[in-house]
């Protein structure tokens, strides 16, 4: 059953294109090629994971999409007009203002757009309840656990109702139990709002559990190696996580990843 549903190299869905990367390359100022000839089509409502070993340029790709960095070759085509306020970004670290309360941290993107505290309050409180942090609005980051900090970070990224949410290995530093919980909550949020997600990870299991598409990248230079459509239905819950379907999908993704790692030229691998 799974075999047929997973097709390598296909592009899923009929939903409209949101962004396409065409022949995108990035060479760092020290001459290191980070990305080479990346073609990637991101559709509205995709949950797309960029999966790959360290140094494959997945974070660089994310920064290019965010506009935090510019490509040295190729181009990014957004459908329609998109400005930065349509982009939400979640960093690898929670990256909160340590001196500000949870409320103020989530309010920040709105505040920078000139929205007053009173005006922002309904949206901020709504977002805090969506990430299960109601009652913690006056806490400062220091008083929260790692998972809770990441929830604040997600609430902050989502409070502006972005069309696309970019996540750079957001749960890599969390323990497994917390990571599973946040995976579930993120999926719930995504299913309710149907924004587009580009999720960078080096975990096969996480990418398969979350995504509708997994794009596998290879290193030196960073490039797209292959793609898997994960057509298991949503909602995906703990039952899915322990199902044979999931295990089979993970094996497939893992095979592609191993291929990608082996395809990398060079005398040594770092073991990532």
């Amino acid at each position: 059953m799974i075999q047929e549903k997973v097709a390598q190299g296909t592009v899923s869905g009929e939903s409209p294109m949101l962004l396409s990367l065409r022949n995108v390359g990035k060479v760092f100022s020290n001459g290191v090629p980070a990305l080479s000839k990346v073609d990637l089509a991101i559709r509205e409502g995709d949950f797309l994971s960029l999966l790959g070993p360290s140094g494959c340029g997945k974070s660089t790709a994310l920064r290019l999409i965010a506009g935090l960095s510019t490509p040295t070759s190729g181009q990014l085509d957004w459908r329609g007009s998109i400005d930065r306020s349509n982009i939400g970004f979640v960093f690898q670290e929670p990256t909160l203002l340590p001196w500000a309360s949870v409320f103020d941290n989530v309010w920040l993107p709105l505040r920078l757009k000139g929205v007053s505290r009173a005006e922002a309050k309904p949206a901020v409180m709504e977002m805090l309840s969506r990430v299960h942090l109601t009652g913690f609005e006056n806490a400062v980051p220091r008083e929260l656990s790692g998972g809770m900090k990441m929830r604040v970070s997600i609430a902050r990224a989502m409070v502006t109702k972005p069309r696309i949410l970019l996540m750079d290995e957001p749960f890599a530093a969390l323990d497994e139990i917390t990571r599973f919980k946040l995976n579930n909550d993120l999926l719930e949020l995504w299913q309710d709002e149907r924004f587009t997600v580009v999720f960078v990870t080096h975990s096969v299991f996480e990418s398969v559990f979350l995504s509708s598409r997994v794009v596998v990248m290879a290193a030196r230079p960073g490039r797209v190696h292959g793609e898997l459509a994960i057509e298991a239905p949503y909602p995906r819950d703990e039952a899915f996580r322990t199902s044979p379907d999931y295990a089979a999908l993970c094996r497939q993704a893992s095979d592609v990843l191993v291929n990608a790692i082996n395809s990398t030229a060079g005398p040594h691998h770092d073991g990532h």
Partner: protein
Amino acid sequence: MTAIEDNALKLDPEEARRVRQERLERIGKWVLPLAIMVLAIWLWDRICVWNGIPQYILPRPGVVLQTLHDDAGLLFSSLLVTLRITFLSLLLAVIGGVGLAVLFAQSKWVEMSFFPFAIVLQVTPIVAIFPLINIYINNQTTKLLLCAWIVAFFPILSNTTLGLNSVDRNLRDLFKLNGATRWQQLRYLRLPAAMPYFLGGLKIAGGLSLIGAVVAEFVAGAQGQSSGLASRIIEAGYRLNAPRLFAALILISLTGILIFLVLSLVSHLILRRWHESALKQER
């Protein structure tokens, strides 16, 4: 305290010893310096008596205390003069230091161009600069203020500059992503991030502004133009009035300690909720 003791009963000997050790350290932190201080004063007194040292060379502590009481009017009015210079110069150091740091933070070029001047001002001994200031400036207060300011502003400038430039890279990106203006980035990100650094500089500057005020007065006072504590010391020195000299010295020391404690408290109150330096270690 009882909670700790109750816990100690259930802890293994290793842990219990650690808790006991910590409690001892807590008490010792206060008791030890006080005990040494009392001992030192007693020794001072004994040395005077045993050696029959005359009062105009080394007065006994009791005499100094008596002088502090008898000359209170004179000494405290002088202290007020010194304090006024100290606080005004500290205020100006904060304004100047932070202002310049913000200016430096706006552009690397500005920082590169002007920072060396700040360093030159800092490393040249103020006593050597004073005669120049004395020529160019007539107003006595302005003279003293300028001196104390030159001594005090550098730690604030240097620390605040460091703080403004030490903002987390990702947070900067976050502000960029959200289209923050330069002013917003300064107001909501860089200034708060620089706060612990600034407060560290402020603690140093507090002490330095007192030193600056006293040194400036010393140089000015030598020309009979000042009425602060430093000129009382010079005056007392001329008259071999050692008890008053000691009394004035003690007042200056106490003032310095008080400034340090107040600034430490301010720093603690501002940072206590979020900064590592102000947080108690969790066990």
